[in-house]
């Protein structure tokens, strides 16, 4: 492989360098989904602190533009594979808020009957191949789904979400190599929130620019502002088109930030409050709301209407989840085998 050929391939995956556009309907949809996710996660923190939600949960607040933008760029029948920080992916892929909330509370009405919970949240009917309790646990599944698509001569694609922390797992190397060799229709979407639990990239890896790793697989890669929903959407659209055209996988690194700690017990000693403030200034919902108002796609009142309705949706979902029954004892042994 020559340097020049790599350069050509790398540039092929870069988003079109023009101001991103969206319709009024799209703007409202993106804003609604991002607000749903944010409020879902804030509510989850509240429910955990009151011990209404038992167990742990890894919250997606701050990263909304990545899930919403990425999933806006693919079709409803395409697949995604999610992560331990997966609530946002589920919402963006079309999971029902009531069932997602109930699942996290371990209720019978949850999308997995209360057997999955936060770490295994998935409404598989939406093409979501699941959140995963193991870091990089979704890579094999996503690669296999892409292989299946290719073998069945289908034109679907797979978005494989994973974090920067997963980058140093061996399966990532194995799957990127396999996907590239077989030109599988998959997008490796790295949600770079700067820390693998507490360890910053610079403390765990000599190479801080994840996109460079794609060179090893002769795979195009680029990075995108993960706080800009339209930028993410357009970057993923380019990758998805490449996959659908049979030209194989690509890697996209979305630079983003998680507002809460890794989990509820995390005092966030590894990062500064200044750094957190910087990212809160770049809040994806604030940025997009302002952009919509500034460009006239949505009025202030229209943004407020989305804000109000999403608050109500989350309240309703919470009520549904809290009121739902626990699974029957007879459910213990069901679903182990098909």
């Amino acid at each position, binding site marked *: 492989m020559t340097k020049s050929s790599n350069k050509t391939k790398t540039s092929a995956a870069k988003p079109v360098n023009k101001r991103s556009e969206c319709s009024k309907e799209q703007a409202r949809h993106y804003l609604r989904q991002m607000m749903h996710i944010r409020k879902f996660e804030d509510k989850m923190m509240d429910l955990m602190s009151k011990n209404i939600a038992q167990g742990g949960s890894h919250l997606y607040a701050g990263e909304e533009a990545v899930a919403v933008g990425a999933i806006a760029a693919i079709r409803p029948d395409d697949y995604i594979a999610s992560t331990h920080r997966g609530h946002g992916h589920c919402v963006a892929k079309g999971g029902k808020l009531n069932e997602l909330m109930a699942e996290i509370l371990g209720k019978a009405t949850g999308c*997995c009957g209360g057997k999955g919970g936060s770490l295994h949240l998935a409404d598989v009917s939406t093409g979501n191949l699941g959140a*995963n309790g193991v870091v990089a646990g979704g890579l094999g599944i996503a690669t296999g789904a892409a292989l*299946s698509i290719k073998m069945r001569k289908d034109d679907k694609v797979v978005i494989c979400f994973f974090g920067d922390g997963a980058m140093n797992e061996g399966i990532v190397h194995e799957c990127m*190599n*396999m996907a590239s060799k077989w030109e599988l229709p998959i997008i490796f979407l790295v949600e770079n929130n700067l820390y693998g639990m507490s360890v910053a990239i610079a403390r765990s890896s000599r190479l801080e620019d994840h996109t460079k790793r794609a060179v090893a697989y002769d795979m195009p890669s680029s990075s995108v502002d993960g706080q800009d929903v339209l930028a993410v959407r357009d970057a993923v659209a380019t990758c998805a088109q490449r996959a659908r055209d049979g030209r194989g996988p690509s890697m996209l690194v979305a630079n983003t930030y998680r507002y809460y700690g890794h989990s509820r017990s995390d005092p966030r000693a590894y990062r500064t409050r200044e750094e957190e403030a910087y990212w809160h200034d770049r809040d994806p919902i604030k940025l997009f709301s302002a952009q919509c108002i500034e460009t006239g796609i949505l009025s202030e009142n229209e943004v407020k209407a989305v804000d109000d309705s999403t608050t109500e949706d989350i309240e309703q979902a919470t009520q549904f989840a809290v009121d739902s029954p626990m699974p029957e004892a007879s459910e213990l042994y*069901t679903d*182990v*085998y098909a």
Partner: protein
Amino acid sequence: MTAKETKQDQRILTYGQAINEALDQEMARDQSVFVMGEDIAIYGGAYSVTKGLWEKYGDERIRDTGISEGAIVGAGIGAAMTGMRPVVEIMYVDFMTLVMDQLCNQAAKLRYMFGGKIKVPLTIRTEGGAGRTLGAHHSQSLESWFMHIPGIKVVMPATPYDAKGLLLSSIRDDNTVVYIEHKMLYNTKGPVPEGEYTIPIGKAEVKRPGKDVSVFTYSRQLLFCQEAAEELANEGIDVEIVDLRTLLPLDVETIVESVRKTNRAVIVEEDTITGGSGAEIGMRIVEEAFDYLDAPVKRVAGADVPMPKSAALESLAIPSKQSIIKGIREVLQ
């Protein structure tokens, strides 16, 4: 059993050929079946099990992979979740250590975690056991690890007939099946019908009826048990041999039925004795047939050591005809 009666007149195939034929027939019958693994295409598999299939089905359905066990099984899972019926090969059971996350955390649990809304119809073919003096990384028997994972099935055929029928069942099963072959069985021969037939997973078979003592075994150790039974028959000791064939789910019913008949139980297993398959089988006998026992349950099993290279030591690390005879005599005292 009709199948058993008619199989006397069948063609003779080796164990390896029987597995090859099962793969071939299932790939011809079902387009969603494909095979993926290391050196399975041009090379034909480390033990020649997939020989000829690449020539017939090509690169698309007989997929040589890089040496990436995690991705082989991981991609198998993803493909199985989305409409395919993959058969993946892990060259040695020893290398299953490299896929334990995929097997234990993903394949086995996905269906349950997602409330029964998906299935993972994946077959993992692998091969284990001692006998070729390959040392500690190419000779293990790890089936007891896999028995400890709810959500998968574990199949270990001993005869060519069972190998074919159980592989067809495994591929058609909607769950993940770990199908473990034994390297010393590949060239053993036996009758195998030409047509398709299935053997139910989870069903043991009495390979030799007897009245004095029950021997529970599987895979290659069946052959040693049969030799031991022949020798003891000369002394008038009538040994019943139950070939478990499937370790998960375990056919407890057939095990208990046999113990109720003979009142004595010996478990013969090649895996290391501590926490091995025999520990589970023996405890099931104690729990469900204790009142029928006239002697303590006896295990004849692998030594608690890494498999040594030297042939002189390797043969001591696993059961033999002589150690099985000794074990049977102990429960008959």
